[in-house]
């Protein structure tokens, strides 16, 4: 059952990911990506990371992709305005990506021999657990992330607003 | 301490020149160089002939890398230091003061880079050169070596002729390439020096002695590398065929004072390097490949002489003759005999003095007639007795007539080469004949014959010019007549080096 679910979700994720890349219309790409995200969220739930799954949906599907969609609509990019790269570039891109894939898969095929994990002790994906770790062990990165956000915010506002002169 | 003073004094004086106005610059610079000369003379007077490195100043500079600020003088060093301190005042004096009308392309067209900068460069250069000749630390040597390049490059760039951008670049690139090779070789040898555990964790040493030892301990293959790296570096500087292509252009294009510095002193850096660094550091390499180097040098002699004969431009002619002379020195040094090395030392000094004289002659010619092409000139002897005489003496020195300084050197060199290989000596000996050919032909065309429109207005030497040429002539003759002190001073040092090579 779990395995079937895994295969289904994987298939969905890969298919939609491919469609993201191949689809001409940006809006469709966004929607495919959202579906991919849902598939990945499904994987999270399979992996017992429910909290992460929810956060994933909220952040990615709920905020980031909406932002994408928002920008696409704001800029009115629904026209398939993309004139095509010449075939050399495309071919090169496909070959490069494909090579990377082949290399990665080839390299990581060896991981099939990894031993099975020890039986899990507790539910690490639970909020309480994650919170403990986040606010004890990873307190500094958490605080530092605020710096990141601050600068991103300042930057985005600076770039986004029109000069008033 | 005197060594340190010798090194530091010119640069401090140079700074003073830099801040003083254009009018005062030459005066200050000249007096500084005279003082410097006096200091070196004092050093000479204190010099003990049989001692090893004297006037040592040794201070840790970069302890973590075992680099010391170690300067000292032995016989070889002090001679070259003297050469420097003697020539620099002459060179400074030889520069026309700014009130003189500017020669075409001879002065920087920019008014802002003034005379002060020029003299600063010269003094800076002097300082670096003395540093090169006295440093007893491989790294320090390299630093001074490079340091000497910068002022001369700027002199060529700022006060050079029409095509200076390209030519100075070529010059710089060549010498830098050589010196980088040298650096690699030095570092390589340095890494072979034993770790001295005394000063912190594992510090090696750049000290000349340890470099000698480390170099000698290397395998013959490694030494071959070291040998070639160093040889190419020095060969470029001298220059030895086939690394010479930068030289004629640069000599022609640089302002005369720059050419004097280049040929009179800077060239000696290369030959000095051969003696001081190459021979002791890679003895096996020298034994294996010295032959090749020698052949190169002799090929260079012939090649340069032949080319010199075909030159129309007198300045270019002297440039090629310089290659020929240096080739001879190099060949003599690689003969690894006492005579060869001694002759090399002697010839270094002689060539330095002569070539400065010759270039000054060219400068005089050029300033008066605006050309240095031999066919255009002629008949100058008829109107300028002083000039003709002094020119003749310098020329004689250059073609190594007996009783001039050139003779002593060339004789010793040829002697050394002969001991090494008679056939080579035969070829090397051609230099004397060929030298006489091109020199005298040049003199004949320029000075003798009919006075033409260009030369008719040729005035005789001014006081300043005499003040430059007369000391040169005196030196030429003095050293030719009585070379013993020079040879005496050099001998112990030369012997020491030879001892390292043939233990």
């Amino acid at each position, binding site marked *: 059952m779990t395995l079937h679910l895994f295969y289904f979700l994987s298939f969905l994720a890969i298919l939609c990911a491919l469609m993201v890349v191949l689809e001409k219309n940006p809006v469709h790409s966004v*929607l495919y990506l959202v579906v991919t995200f849902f598939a990945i969220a499904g994987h999270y739930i399979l992996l017992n990371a429910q*909290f992460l799954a*929810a956060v994933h*949906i909220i952040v990615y599907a*709920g*905020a980031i992709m*909406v*932002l994408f*969609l*928002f920008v696409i609509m704001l800029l009115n990019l629904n026209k398939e305005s993309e004139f095509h790269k010449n075939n050399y570039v495309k071919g090169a891109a496909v070959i490069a990506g494909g090579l990377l894939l082949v290399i990665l898969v080839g390299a990581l095929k060896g991981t099939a021999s990894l031993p099975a994990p020890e039986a899990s002790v507790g539910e690490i994906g639970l909020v309480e657990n994650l919170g403990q770790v986040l606010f004890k062990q990873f307190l500094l990165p958490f605080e530092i992330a605020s710096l990141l956000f601050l600068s991103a915010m300042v930057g985005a506002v600076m770039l986004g607003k029109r000069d008033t002169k | 301490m005197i060594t340190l003073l010798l090194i530091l004094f010119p640069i401090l004086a140079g700074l003073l020149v830099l801040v003083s106005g254009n009018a005062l610059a030459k005066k200050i610079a000249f007096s500084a160089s005279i003082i410097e000369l006096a200091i070196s003379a004092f050093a000479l007077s204190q010099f003990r002939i049989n001692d090893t490195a004297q006037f040592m100043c040794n201070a840790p500079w970069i302890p973590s890398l075992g680099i010391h600020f170690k300067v000292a003088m032995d016989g070889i060093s002090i001679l070259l230091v003297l050469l420097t301190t003697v020539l620099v005042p002459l060179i400074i004096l030889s520069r026309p003061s700014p009130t003189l009308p500017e020669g075409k392309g001879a002065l920087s067209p920019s008014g802002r880079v003034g005379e002060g900068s020029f003299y600063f460069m010269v003094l800076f250069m002097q300082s670096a050169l003395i540093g090169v000749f006295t440093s007893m630390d491989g790294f320090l040597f390299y630093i001074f070596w490079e340091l000497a390049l910068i002022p001369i490059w700027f002199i060529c760039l700022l006060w050079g002729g029409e095509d200076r951008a390209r030519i100075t670049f070529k010059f710089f690139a060549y010498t830098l390439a050589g010196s980088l090779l040298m650096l690699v070789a030095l570092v390589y040898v340095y890494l072979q020096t034993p770790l001295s555990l005394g000063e912190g964790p594992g510090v090696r040493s750049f000290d000349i002695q340890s470099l000698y030892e480390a170099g000698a301990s290397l395998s013959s293959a490694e030494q071959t590398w070291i040998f070639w790296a160093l040889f190419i570096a020095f060969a470029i500087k001298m220059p030895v065929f086939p690394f010479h292509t930068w030289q004629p252009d640069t000599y022609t294009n640089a302002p005369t004072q720059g050419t004097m510095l280049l040929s009179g002193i800077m060239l000696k850096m290369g030959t000095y390097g051969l003696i001081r660094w190459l021979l002791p550091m890679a003895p096996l390499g020298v034994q294996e490949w010295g032959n090749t180097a020698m052949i190169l040098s002799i090929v260079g002699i012939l090649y340069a002489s032949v080319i010199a004969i075909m030159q129309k431009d007198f300045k270019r002619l002297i440039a090629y003759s310089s290659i020929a002379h240096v080739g001879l020195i190099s060949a003599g040094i690689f003969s690894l005999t006492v005579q060869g090395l001694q002759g090399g030392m002697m010839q270094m000094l002689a060539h330095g003095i002569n070539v400065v004289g010759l270039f000054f002659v060219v400068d005089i010619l050029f300033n008066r007639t605006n050309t240095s092409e031999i066919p255009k000139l002629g008949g100058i002897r008829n109107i300028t007795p002083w000039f003709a005489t002094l020119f003749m003496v310098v020329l004689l020195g250059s073609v190594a007539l007996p009783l001039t300084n050139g003779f002593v050197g060339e004789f010793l060199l040829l002697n050394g080469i002969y001991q090494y290989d008679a056939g080579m000596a035969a070829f090397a000996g051609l230099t004397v004949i060929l030298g006489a050919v091109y020199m005298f032909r040049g003199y004949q065309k320029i000075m003798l014959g009919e006075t033409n429109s260009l030369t008719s207005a040729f005035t005789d030497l001014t006081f300043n010019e005499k003040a430059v040429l007369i000391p040169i002539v005196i030196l030429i003759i003095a050293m030719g007549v009585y070379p013993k002190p020079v040879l005496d001073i050099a001998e112990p040092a030369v012997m020491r080096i030879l001892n390292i090579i043939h233990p």
Partner: protein
Amino acid sequence: MQTEIIYKSILALAVFGITLFIAMYSTYAERKIAAFLQDRLGPNRAGPFGILQPLADGVKMFMKEEMIPEVSNKFLFILGPSIAMLTCLMTGAVIPWGSSITIAGNEYSLQVADINIGILYLLGVTSVGVYGIMIGGWASNNKFSLLGAIRASSQMISYEIGMGLSIIALIMTTGTLSIGEIAAQQHGGHWNVFYQPLGFLIFIVCAFAETNRAPFDLPECESELVGGYHTEYSSMKLGFYLFAEYINMFISSAVIATLYFGGYNMPFIGRFIQDPNALAIIGSVFLFCKIFFFIFLFMWVRWTLPRFRYDQLMNLGWKGLLPLAILNIAITGIVMWFTGKIN
């Protein structure tokens, strides 16, 4: 296990049905309340007091001609309202409609799924809800629709932040993300609204904005955008959008009631009735009373306050509610620290 699944299916269906029913009658209520607030009577022809009006509306919706604009993207055009409907129906799953009922010794919870991150689930689903509007508005290929969609998305993103932050303060006091537990904790009159008045205020304002209700109904404001994102929609697809809005309103009311007003807890009722089943049912009824009140509030506000201007909307969201929510968190933290709840 088997019975559990069957029971849960039944419960889910029931919730589904009730939700639809309430949404249906919300349309009726909206019109009635609007009428009453405006000294009118409202629909009263279909059935007694117009009680059958929603049915008539439904029939009308189904009967109307279906129109899909020629140049629009047909799949997305249909997908839009479907997503809107789907997401709003999904939210009902985590709300505890009452405590548990015991039948034949088995305890049956009146909550479809008590997942431990219920609040996040709610936030996630509502955040996905915006796709319905955006896709619909975009696929209509109509500038009014597009404007409405853009407004909707920016508005929803903006207010989601305030909402999330206000909930965080609540989570701090309750210490759990499970809605069932939050409801249970408010037993005995300890309603969260007393502890989180500011949070409640922020939450309710954000809830208004999230459901696109007046005064935040910019995405569809009829006077400027001719209906906004659903300008091009007709028949049942329009019905879906409208329905979705009412369902959202219902769920929002339910969430407000549950999070801040004790959910199914009725204070003091325990003194009079002991039977747990009866208590559960009364609790549920009480919960629905609260929900109805909030639905009423939604409508009441709609007919009281004028619509915001777009910049006012953004100002309120970013410069008003967001700092307030953060302030609220800070205050909550400080108070909790002083009262020794955290150390």
